[in-house]
């Protein structure tokens, strides 16, 4: 229960205990939804379970962030941020083996459940009017099955059930920030971790030409050419000009974008994917001209 500690002018600190009854009522109720159920050939069955109030193992979360390619954050801060979030929604994969095989190993693991964190999203809120969804992530090996969509949909539903009317988010791709700061080395790691094209196909229906082109490009670039060889061919200089001349990559058009430095282009394509993704879920970008703004302090 958060306490309001007021330091008054005369240095007497006064602790105000908010009535605890009200707070308990308004906390999101535990809610579990089985999103998917399937049986593998080896007799194990897998359930994908959404939960809006499950405990999150921060080490598991860190492993998931690593897989997705997000930068690491101090665990103590992650713990605090989860605790201070109004809702922490998770996707878990629960595998149960039924021991249909004859091997000893199958019998040993018979009926045992294995629970793995494969997705997370969280929302901060004032518990009354506004909520903001942050940090939506899905394990790359589970992407492309509509799980990200289901996750956000469930979070929105849960928030609406709590009568929170103003649900917002900032569509961005964390990988961008990361890769702007750490450059090329990270890009290739990210490429391995985040299959953007698959994501796009899964959520906006159909394969568009850009993604095909991208995949081809990726195949061509595997293994990627060194930047030195690109620079010597004048490609980088051209790409720099193309990029610095326009403030928004959108202006370049998709065709040319595919030719621009693959690292930058991938990051920006990813953003379109994310905006599209949320638009399909009922979110509107800049409604009535309202702009999302970020503090960029000059201190």
């Amino acid at each position, binding site marked *: *229960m*958060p*306490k*309001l*500690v*007021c*330091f008054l002018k005369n240095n007497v600190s006064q602790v*105000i205990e908010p009535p605890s009854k009200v707070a308990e009522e308004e906390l999101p109720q535990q809610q579990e939804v089985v999103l998917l159920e399937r049986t593998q050939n080896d007799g194990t069955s897998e359930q994908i379970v959404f939960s809006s109030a499950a405990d999150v193992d921060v080490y598991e979360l860190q492993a998931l962030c690593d897989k997705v390619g997000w*930068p690491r954050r*101090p665990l*103590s*801060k992650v*713990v*605090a*941020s989860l605790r*201070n979030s109004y809702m922490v929604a998770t996707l878990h994969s629960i595998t149960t083996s039924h021991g249909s095989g004859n091997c000893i190993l199958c019998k040993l693991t018979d009926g045992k459940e294995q629970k793995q964190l494969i997705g997370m999203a969280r929302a*901060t809120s*004032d*518990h*009354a*009017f*506004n909520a*903001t969804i942050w940090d939506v992530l899905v394990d790359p090996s589970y992407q492309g099955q509509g799980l990200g969509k289901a996750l956000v949909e469930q979070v929105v539903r849960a928030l609406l059930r709590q009568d929170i009317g*103003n*649900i*917002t*988010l*900032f*569509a*961005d791709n964390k990988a961008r*920030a*990361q890769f*702007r*700061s*750490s*450059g*090329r080395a990270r890009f290739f790691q990210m490429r391995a971790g985040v299959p953007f094209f698959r994501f796009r196909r899964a959520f906006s229906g159909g394969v568009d030409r850009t993604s095909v082109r991208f995949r081809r490009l990726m195949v061509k670039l595997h293994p990627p050419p060194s*930047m*030195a060889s*690109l620079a010597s061919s004048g490609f980088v200089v051209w790409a720099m000009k193309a990029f610095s001349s326009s403030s*928004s990559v959108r202006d370049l058009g998709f065709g040319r974008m595919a030719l621009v*430095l693959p690292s930058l282009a991938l990051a920006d394509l990813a*953003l379109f994917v994310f*905006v599209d993704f*949320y638009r399909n879920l*009922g*979110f*509107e*970008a*800049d409604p*009535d001209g*309202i*702009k*999302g*703004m*970020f*503090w*960029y*302090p000059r*201190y």
Partner: protein
Amino acid sequence: MQVHGFLLPPNRFPLLPSTPPSSIPIPTQSAAPLIRCTSTSNTTSQPLPLSISDAELAARGIRVRRCSAGLDLEALNAVFARVGFPRREASRLRVALEHTDALVWLEENGEAGEGAPVAFARATGDGVFNAVVWDVVVDPALQGTGLGKAVMERLLGDLRDRGIVNIALYAEPKVVGFYRMLGFAADPDGIKGMVYSRRKNKR
């Protein structure tokens, strides 16, 4: 290698700094989110420059408050109504203020009476990484006298002192310029602010 310089631009928007600035205190595990009702902080970082100091405000008969205790919700609702914000139910407003990370309001000594705000701003978030600023209002009678700037600067300073680097808000078109002046950038790196729309969902 010049090419390298292009590939590694400075991280202009420290949305997720890989290494946090050393001045950021790591919150203790047990600490519940606190509303710190004073700006006195134990951080070593430079305080943000204020365009109007507390003393100057005091000279104008305005007191800076950082705590929802003593705030007259009816008076706040009246200010909301005057600037065209929707009126909020007092009980829910109270709940929202209890779950607000940082809050700054200005109280005018005089005819408005005790607890009546002339300017108000609050921020919600996870208290660690992110904060979103909501409900920034200035009484129309006092708009254009620097009070909006005064509350926002103090709110941002309080958030920054707690190590929150990712501070965002949703700005109506007519106030985008105001926030720009305070150091906000619209859609930095193309990040889009999005709002869930019920009407679209009803289709």
